[in-house]
């Protein structure tokens, strides 16, 4: 096999493909992440509708596939087949380019998100700065969409969301800075902006930054958690698309595929900001208690979690099969769900084999790669699990709270979050100096 493929697989190479200079593997990672995020968005779409429905004593999608599992696919096909409408009065080019900008901003962020110590496209030394910068480009897509539509509701929606995103970015940035300050309390005494470096700093200091200098880390985290909801225009801060006020906000005039690009961008941005929160405060890819329970036995036990999770999902699916009506009308659905359960079970078995097998030896290259593969799965698993918690929170917020009014939203941003985050930043700096 060509050297440019094999060289990265060598167990002696550590770090991200970008770091190792392997263009080929960087491209593979980009492809995997793009596909993975798109699939995650579809899954999130289904989960949100299901979870929201159960909050609201409904069933949610039930018809397309067992328990509506194929609903996102059906929706995607429907959206792609819809007529592509550009209003006659709209600015054609701007209308066309706006969803692309939003999507680009949402997806470009993923180049630096570390799913594991080497599971990132690249480890930029200005990672977090890049991330904040690129993710705030998303507002450009919204403003352009609102302007290009040449219509009142989208315009107001675009103005609202741009004002909102810009003001919450300030509080968000300050909260991030207080976390970055904490990274400089390493043995080496140098802070870092690199996403992987931030997680490593937490590993080195033996504490997730959410618990660091309690309650300072926690406050900064909460501020970030609030600001990130506002940043992604989700309830209770969904001014921009406040359905009951502005019909659909900035994407009122959009339909079909273009509209779905906006949705894709929104959900991708949600995952992206959740990833930032996980990286900065919740120890990124690290499993719980990596230092306290660091015996190989604990490593072994924790490496079973991915397999167990998939076994659990498979069990839920099997229970679903058992509970489904035995009427012949539901036969296809039952078989479909059973196949789904089987797939989940197969993945679980596969993960189990990797967890046990990847453990053995690292004498030769192949076994070393296997061990690396196992570690990689563990890292990605814990990272995704933490992000999933945030995604669930997004749904929970939406089901629970009414919507803020625009001026109240700005007041919360400027008069509450900003002073608190400034204060936390200053106090963190002082405490940090005293401690070191």
């Amino acid at each position: 096999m060509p050297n440019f493929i094999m060289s990265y697989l060598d167990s002696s190479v550590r770090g991200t493909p970008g770091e190792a200079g392997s263009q080929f593997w960087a491209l593979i990672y980009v492809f995997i992440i793009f596909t993975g995020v798109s699939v995650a968005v579809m899954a999130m779409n289904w989960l949100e509708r299901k979870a929201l429905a159960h909050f609201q004593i409904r069933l949610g999608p039930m018809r397309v596939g067992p328990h509506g599992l194929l609903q996102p696919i059906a929706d995607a096909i429907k959206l792609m087949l819809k007529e592509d409408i550009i209003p006659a009065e709209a600015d054609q080019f701007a209308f066309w380019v706006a969803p692309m900008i939003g999507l680009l901003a949402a997806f470009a962020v993923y180049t630096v998100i570390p799913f594991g110590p080497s599971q990132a496209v690249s480890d930029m030394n200005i990672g977090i700065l890049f991330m904040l910068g690129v993710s705030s480009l998303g507002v450009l897509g919204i403003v352009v969409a609102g302007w290009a539509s040449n219509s009142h509701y989208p315009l107001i929606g675009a103005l609202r969301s741009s004002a909102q995103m810009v003001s919450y970015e300030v509080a968000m940035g300050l909260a991030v800075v207080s976390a970055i300050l904490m990274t400089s309390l390493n043995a080496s005494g140098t802070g870092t902006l690199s996403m992987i470096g931030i997680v490593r700093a937490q590993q080195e200091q033996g504490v997730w930054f959410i618990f660091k200098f309690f309650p300072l880390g926690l406050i900064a985290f909460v501020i970030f958690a609030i600001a990130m909801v506002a940043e992604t225009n989700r309830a209770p801060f969904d001014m921009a698309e406040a359905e009951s006020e502005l019909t659909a906000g900035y994407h009122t005039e959009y339909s079909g595929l273009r509209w779905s690009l906006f949705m894709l961008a929104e959900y991708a941005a949600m995952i992206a900001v959740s990833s930032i929160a996980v990286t900065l405060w919740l120890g990124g890819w690290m499993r719980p208690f990596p230092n306290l329970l660091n015996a190989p036995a604990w490593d072994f036990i924790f490496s079973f979690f991915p397999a167990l999770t998939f076994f659990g999902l498979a069990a839920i699916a099997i229970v679903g099969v058992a509970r489904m009506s035995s009427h012949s009308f539901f036969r296809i659905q039952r078989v479909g769900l059973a196949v789904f359960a089987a797939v989940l079970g197969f993945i679980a078995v596969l993960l189990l084999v990797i967890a046990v097998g990847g453990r053995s030896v690292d004498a030769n290259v192949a076994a070393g790669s296997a061990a690396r593969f196992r570690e990689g799965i563990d890292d990605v698993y814990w990272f995704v699990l933490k992000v999933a918690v945030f995604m669930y929170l997004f749904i929970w917020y939406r089901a629970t709270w009414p919507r803020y009014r625009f001026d109240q939203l700005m007041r919360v941003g400027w008069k509450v979050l900003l002073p608190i985050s400034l204060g936390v930043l200053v106090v963190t700096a002082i405490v940090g100096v005293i401690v070191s």
Partner: protein
Amino acid sequence: MNAPANDRTDDHISDSANDVAHRAPSNLDLDAPATPYLDSNELIINMGPQHPATHGVLRVILKLDGEKVLGTECVIGYLHRGVEKIGENRTYTMFNPYVDRMDYVAAVSNGLGYCEAVEKLMNVEAPARAKYIRVIMTELNRIASHQLWLGTHALDIGAMTPLFYTFRDREEILKIFEKYCGARLTTHAFRIGGCQYETYAGFEKEVKNFLTYVAPKIDEYEELLTTNRIWLERTKNVGVISGADCIALGVTGPVLRASGVQWDLRKAQPYAAYSEFDFEIPVGTNGDTYDRYLVRMAEMRQSLRIIEQAVNGIPEGPIMAKVPKVIKPPVGEIYHSIEAPKGELGYFIVSDGTTQPYRLRVRPPSFVNLQALDRMVRGLLVADVIAVIGTIDIVLGEVDR
């Protein structure tokens, strides 16, 4: 005589919908912008008639400075069916089902008002048992109407979940309606002179079950909203209107009571069997959206009290007074009003001694209350317009008739 500018208010009903936007209704002055502030221009946008939060087909023309509302103009009539004119061309009995189609979420109240008005015109009184059945049904309908209001109002403000909770519980009321008279929404529950149907077997037990079922559910709605920080911020001091303004505009119902005026026709001019029950009139103090919310929540609980007393004390006896097959009230006129869930619902009927009314006029609470919208929302933000439309609790079928 009148200045030309003021003439336009009277005839704009006859305009086509599009003309109104161009022709500038009097109080908005859509053509000439007010003094420009920092070179900003006013924005005039159409909210409705196709809009998710205008509760049907209300069209509100908003004049905005940024997000601030400078003025509003309601354009109504998209649901006009000429109910009053239909009334002149139907016999008294035939017209009875039509009134259900006005406020279709409180059809029972509409029927009660109409039946009582005609009875008063004919000098007939419904038997005691019929009156009790009427009270039970009407109060159940009041709860159903308030539940629907709560759900949609909360949805307008952005809380999605209460809608489903209220609809779940409203369903129990509709089941009772369906069992009683075969219809869920446009019930046509009462007849002139009493009730057509005797209660079904187990009616009282089911109503009692409902009372025990729904009381904790109302607490559940309150748990979601009453102390919710965002809900408080969105509703407190929003859409304030004073009691004096309410009276001047003719506003009635929970909107009036939330402004501190203790006026409820069930107490002030007792009809049906209301004089026999013990209940309170909840009133507010500030006259804002939050007070209106609290008043309606309290009213649901008072309705439960009334229903409980009525079910326990329901007398035996006939359910229909002696009414001729062909209803021919004597020559005369009558105005009879009841306390519908949304306010004072009045029927003014002029009889010329034939089988059809000479003139039938409905005083719908929604239509009159809607007049207060402009006064409530001036100077507020766009989002508040939605909250205020919700809090007035209008049903466009009743506004347009």
